[in-house]
């Protein structure tokens, strides 16, 4: 009897499991029938972005809603962690959910989402005019020669330096290395960057490689990182760790550790994003108020090639009100909104002329420097396999920086790992 009841139980379980699987199978194939008819549809939409730390979102949405009472925008904030924002978007897209209409995407996600068919291409009736925009953010939002997202904010790396100790900022890497003598004389460390194993490391490493003329991927997205130029770029950082220009503990540094050390007066130079500028001059704990300035990242002979940061906004392929969504993209990229973002939230605009706008430059002295940085910026590899590519760069660069691999071997392994990651599995 015991045996029989056990068998029955098993059979029951199996039956239920099969039923559940078929049910799920049906439901997942049902959705997603989005056609071009949605392109002309108007109505309320939802805008999704990462956590709004500066209070820009609510007034912006209110301004839109006042002007468009029948096409109201509902704003949804995700967490402030990029990984979690990415996961949230993937979950919604995978379920072909119509809840998200316009989504904010980090510059490095565009290709992946576009290749999955989750974003509405901005062409033909859905075209967006990008004249007057900075080139690099537009390139980062383009996949397969098609624009898939509207660049909303941009970002580039800057060289922060102590102007009380370094009268003229270094223009080249050689000058930067020579200036480290000043740091030594003052008992400071020389250069702070982001060298912990996370996305920041990819930014810092590709920056160095691009500066020396290396290229992570070609226009078709094929890995081309294994070149003498890339090795030279990585070698520069490896040497930096060896000769003490970059102290060993920076293997654990992200943006914030470097910023707080720089604000404590422990570093002569720091590579960081523009957000550190206002914090450095306003933080109560900052010991360097008025003692620092920014310059473009140093290069081999001229300005270096910064990594491009920032966000774009894209229209979900499953949105049911795409005409409204497109208008909202135009609103987000309008000169008014761009200026407002800069003034209220220090978000760097994507419209080139704003960087020389006297009313902005008088308040944000770093803008022209940032323009140089972004004009020379190279987008991180535009590839649908970005996660695999960035892992390949991080793992191998970290091994080289911590001394367990030579720079040449690391770059070779990067190339192989990027190829393996791009082949699908």
């Amino acid at each position, binding site marked *: *009897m*015991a045996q029989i*009841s*056990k068998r*029955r*139980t098993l059979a*029951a*379980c199996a039956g*239920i*499991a099969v039923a*559940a*699987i078929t049910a*799920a199978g049906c439901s997942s194939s049902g959705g997603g029938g989005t056609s071009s008819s949605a392109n002309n549809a108007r109505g309320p939409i939802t805008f999704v972005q990462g956590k709004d730390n500066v209070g820009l979102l609510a007034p912006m949405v209110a301004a839109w809603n006042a002007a468009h009472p029948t096409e109201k925008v509902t704003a949804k904030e995700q967490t402030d962690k990029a*990984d979690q924002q*990415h*996961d949230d978007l993937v979950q919604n897209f995978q379920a072909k959910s119509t809840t998200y209409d316009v989504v904010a995407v980090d510059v490095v996600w565009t290709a*992946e989402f576009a*290749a*999955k*068919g989750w974003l509405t291409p901005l062409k033909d009736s859905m075209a967006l005019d990008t004249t007057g925009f900075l080139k690099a953010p537009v390139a980062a939002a383009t*996949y*397969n020669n098609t624009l898939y997202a509207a660049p909303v904010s941009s970002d580039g790396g800057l060289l922060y330096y102590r102007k009380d100790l370094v009268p003229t900022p270094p223009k080249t890497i050689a000058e930067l290395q020579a200036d480290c003598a000043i740091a030594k004389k003052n008992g400071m460390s020389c250069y702070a960057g982001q060298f*912990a*194993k*996370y996305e920041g490391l990819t930014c810092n490493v590709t920056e160095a490689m691009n500066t020396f003329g290396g290229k992570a991927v070609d226009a078709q997205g094929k890995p081309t990182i294994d070149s003498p130029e890339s090795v030279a770029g990585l070698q520069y950082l490896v040497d930096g760790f060896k000769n003490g220009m970059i102290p*060993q*503990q920076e*293997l*654990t540094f992200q943006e914030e*550790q470097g910023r707080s050390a720089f604000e404590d007066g422990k570093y002569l130079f720091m590579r960081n994003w523009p957000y550190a500028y206002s914090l450095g001059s306003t933080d109560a704990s900052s010991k360097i108020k008025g003692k620092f300035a920014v310059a473009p990242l140093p290069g081999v002979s001229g300005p270096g090639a910064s990594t491009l940061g920032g966000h774009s906004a894209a229209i979900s392929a499953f949105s049911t009100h795409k005409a409204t969504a497109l208008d909202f993209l135009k609103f987000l990229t309008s000169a008014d909104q761009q200026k407002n973002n800069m003034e209220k939230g220090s978000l760097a605009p994507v419209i080139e002329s704003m960087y020389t706008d006297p009313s902005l430059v008088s308040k944000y002295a770093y803008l022209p420097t940032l323009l140089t940085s972004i004009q020379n910026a190279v987008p991180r590899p535009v590839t*649908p*396999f970005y*996660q*695999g590519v960035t*892992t*390949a*760069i*991080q*793992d*191998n660069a*970290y*091994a080289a920086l*911590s001394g367990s691999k030579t720079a040449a071997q690391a770059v070779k*392994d*990067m190339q*192989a*790992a*990027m*190829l*393996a*990651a*791009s*082949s*699908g*599995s």
Partner: protein
Amino acid sequence: MSAVAQQAPKKAPTPKARKSLNAGQARNGLLLVLPTLLFLSVIILYPLINAVVISFEKDAGLDKATGMFVQGGGAGISNYTHWLLQQCGTESCPPGTLGAQFYSAFWVTIFFTVVSVAIETVLGIWFAMIMNRDFKGRALVRAAILVPWAIPTAVTAKLFYFIFAYDGIANHLLGNIGLGPFLWTSDPWAAKFAIIIADVWKTTPFMALLILAGLQLIPSDVYEAAEIDGATKWQTFTKITLPLVKVPLMVAVLFRTLDVLRIYDLPAILTNGVGGTTSLSMLVVSQIRAGGFNSASALSTLVFLLIAFTAFLFIQFGGADVIKRPPGAKKKKDAAPPTAPAATAVAAQSGVTP
């Protein structure tokens, strides 16, 4: 992965229902447990089976002509050979791919399990014996020992992240006695021990609590008998306490072992996998993030098998009696470990004749 955690407890209700009912009541019994079975099927069995099913399909690949992803189709066992034989496509996985991290993740997970469970067991027994004693301020000591267990793991991990920062308190204190500074979140060995230290701090109370429950079931007269017979403290511990506490101890060790085998949050927050501290579960999540749902399913199936196998070993050979003895059945306690009374008798005797 959560399904995996439920694996051991899941089995308990069925045999219990079967054993305690006679033949005529079996049908009613089945009806009564049916809602539970249904519920468990939906939340455990379905995801489990589905994960195994999709692990035999290919990850979405890129169509070179259109630049768009297409679903892969059947993959045979290639997702499994990808991890186990380190095959990325036609060649072996180069360093820097997630596939290449499999064996390092496997061994470091085993390393965490063995080392931290060993330390936790020793400390747990010690703490439990302290808590079991009668002394002034016992309530305070008990509360103090239990505090770490009450703190969520994510918070623990963040706390230790600050403690082990380069200019954090750990390096400061070690600097005072002339050691370090260590790169706790970067150096391979320091990072491993940072995780073990944080894990031990957090979960020793759990171990101590389970062992304490076992200790309190030991009647005080066996100790009195041992004392009268002149047994030393060590003899009392090895010949009376340990044998009598063996069953709850093994259950505690089993729980902790299964727990550490699927460790995720602590290393993910504390070190983010730097210095070879990527655990198997972290590798699964990284693989999902990289878009490889199918190969991630294969990996989590492998983790499931590893955990199921470990649980089997414990139950079969380790004496972790979680299946045969339902937790509520107290009356069986005397009968269950037949060796225990005999052992104490022997212990008492051997205590007299040194």
